[in-house]
C-alpha cells in the first residue's frame, strides 16, 4: 500500500515539475532569444521578468474561447487535450534517480518500471500525432489541415530513424527497460580501461546513434529547424491557426513539456541518466535518500541542458524546406541508422570474443 502512495506522490511531483519546467522554459526561451539577438527580453513582470510565465498563463485563461462555426466542435476540443495528455504521460518510465529507502525497503524513483520501458515512450510518442491531426482537421481551415498533415507526415517519418537508432542501444544493453539501460551506464569502466566510475555512458559508444536520435527528437517536438507544421510564412499558424485561449495554450505548453521529457530521455539513453562520476563514492558515505535527490539533480541538470540546447538551435539555424526535411528523414537518417545498427552488431560480435 505504501508503494502505491509513494507512486502517487511521485506522479504528482513529476507532474508539477513538468509543468513548472515547461512554464519557465517559455520564459527561458524568450531570454535565450533575447540574449542571442542582443535584446533584454521580458523584464516587466517581477524581478528580471520572472513572473512572466504566470502572467502568460493568466492571460491565456482570460482570453475569449473561440470555436469556429464550421469546425467539428467535439474534435476541436479533443485535439489539444490528446496532445497534452500524451506529453504528460511520456515521463512515466524514466528513472529519475537512484532508489529511495524507507524502513529498509527500496523504492525506485520511477513511476513504472515495466519490462518494455523505452517502447512505452515510443508508443506514447506515436499517439501524439493524433492530437495534431485531429485538431488540424477539426478546425476545418485549409492552413490548419495542411499544417496537420505536414506535421503528422514529419513525425511518422522521423519516428522510423528514431526507432532504428534505439535498436543499437538495446543491442548493447540487452534490455528494453530504461532502468537497466541507465544502471548499466553507471557500472564498469569506459572502454574497459578508463578508471572513472559512473562515466560508462553510451554516447562514447554510440556517437552516430546519438546524433540521429537528437535530430529525430527535434523533428518529433516540431522544433526549429523542423517547425514546418507551424511555418508562419506559409501556413499562418499551422495546425493551431484557429485555436485561442487555453486550447492554444495547451498546444504550446505541451511542446515545452515534450522538450523537457525528450531531454530527460536523451540523457537517460546516451548520457548516463542520473549517473555522474562520484555517485558511487557518495552512496557509500551519504544517506540513500539524499543520494537519490542528488542523482535526480544530475539528471535534471542534463535534461535542462538539452532544453537549452533546443532553444540554442532554434535561434541559430534557419528552417528547412519541406522536401529537404523529408529527404533528410528518409534518405539520410534512415540509411544511416541502419548502418549504425550494422556497425554496432559487427563491433559487438568482434569485441565480445
Amino acid at each position, binding site marked *: 500500500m505504501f508503494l502505491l502512495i509513494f507512486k502517487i506522490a511521485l506522479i504528482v511531483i513529476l507532474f508539477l515539475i513538468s509543468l513548472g519546467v515547461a512554464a519557465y522554459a517559455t520564459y527561458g526561451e524568450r531570454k535565450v532569444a533575447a540574449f542571442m539577438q542582443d535584446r533584454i527580453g521580458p523584464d516587466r513582470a517581477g524581478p528580471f521578468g520572472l513572473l512572466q510565465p504566470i502572467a502568460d498563463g493568466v492571460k491565456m485563461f482570460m482570453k475569449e474561447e473561440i470555436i469556429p462555426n464550421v469546425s*467539428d466542435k467535439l*474534435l476541436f476540443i479533443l485535439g489539444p487535450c490528446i496532445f497534452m495528455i500524451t506529453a504528460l504521460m511520456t515521463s512515466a518510465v524514466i528513472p529519475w534517480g537512484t532508489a529511495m529507502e524507507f524502513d529498509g525497503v527500496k523504492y525506485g524513483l520511477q513511476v513504472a518500471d515495466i*519490462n*518494455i520501458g523505452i517502447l512505452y515512450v515510443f*508508443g506514447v510518442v*506515436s499517439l501524439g500525432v493524433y492530437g495534431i491531426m485531429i485538431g488540424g*482537421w477539426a478546425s476545418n481551415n485549409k492552413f490548419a*489541415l495542411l499544417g496537420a498533415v505536414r506535421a503528422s507526415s514529419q513525425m511518422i517519418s522521423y519516428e522510423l530513424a528514431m526507432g532504428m537508432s534505439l535498436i543499437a542501444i538495446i543491442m548493447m544493453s540487452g534490455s528494453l527497460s530504461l532502468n537497466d539501460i541507465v544502471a548499466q551506464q553507471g557500472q564498469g569502466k569506459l572502454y574497459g580501461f578508463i578508471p572513472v566510475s559512473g562515466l560508462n555512458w553510451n554516447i562514447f559508444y554510440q556517437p552516430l546513434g546519438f546524433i540521429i536520435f537528437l535530430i529525430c527528437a527535434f523533428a518529433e517536438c516540431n522544433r526549429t529547424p523542423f517547425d514546418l507544421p507551424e511555418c508562419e510564412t506559409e501556413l499562418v499558424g499551422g495546425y493551431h491557426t484557429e485555436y485561442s485561449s487555453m486550447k492554444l495554450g495547451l498546444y504550446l505548453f505541451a511542446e515545452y513539456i515534450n522538450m523537457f521529457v525528450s531531454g530527460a530521455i536523451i540523457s537517460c539513453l546516451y548520457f548516463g541518466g542520473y549517473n555522474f562520476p562520484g555517485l558511487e563514492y557518495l552512496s557509500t558515505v551519504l544517506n540513500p535518500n539524499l543520494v537519490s535527490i542528488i542523482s535526480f539533480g544530475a539528471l535534471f541538470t542534463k535534461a535542462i541542458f538539452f532544453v537549452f540546447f533546443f532553444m540554442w538551435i532554434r535561434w541559430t539555424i534557419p528552417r528547412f524546406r519541406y522536401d529537404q526535411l523529408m529527404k533528410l528523414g528518409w534518405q539520410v537518417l534512415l540509411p544511416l541508422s541502419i548502418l549504425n545498427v550494422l556497425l554496432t552488431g559487427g563491433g559487438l560480435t568482434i569485441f565480445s570474443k
Partner: protein
Amino acid sequence: MGISQIIFYMLAAFTLLSALFVVFSKNPIYSVLWLILCFFSIAGHFVMLNAQFLAVVHIIVYSGAIMVLFLFTVMLLNLNSETEPHKPTLLKFAAVLSGGALFLIIIAAVRSTMPAPYVAPQLSEVGYVKNIGMKLYRDYTLPFEVASILFLSAMIGSVVLAKKERFN
C-alpha cells in the same frame, strides 16, 4: 470475484462498446477514433495476460501506425455531405442479408467451440520480449525471413499503385 476479473469485464465491455461505435458512427473520422480506443482496450487485455511486449507493439503498430494511415485515407476522401453517395435500396437489402448471414455463421461457430481451460496468466513469462525473441529467432527463422519478402512485395505494390499515373 477477484479484482482482475472485475477489470477484465470492464475492459471487455469497453472493447465491445467501442467496436459497436465504430460501426454506428456516422462520421468516418469518429469511426476511426473509436477504433483506436478499441485497440487500446485490446492492448489492455494483453497487459492483463502479462504479454507486455505484444501490448505495446499493438499500440505502436495498430494505434500509432495503421490508424494514422486510416485517418489519412479518411481525410483524403471528400467528406462533404453533398457528395455523399446514396446507395440503391437493392444494395442495402443485399448488404443486410449478407451481414445477417455472416452474423449467424459466427454465432454458430462460437457456440460450437470448446472453451479452453483457464490458465493463470500472471505466472507465465512467455510474453516477455526476451522469450519472444528467443522463440522467433531460434525456432521460427524461416517464417521471419518469409515475412521480410512479404514486406518487400507490399512496398513494391504500394509504390506501383501510388505512382501509377506516371505511365499513362
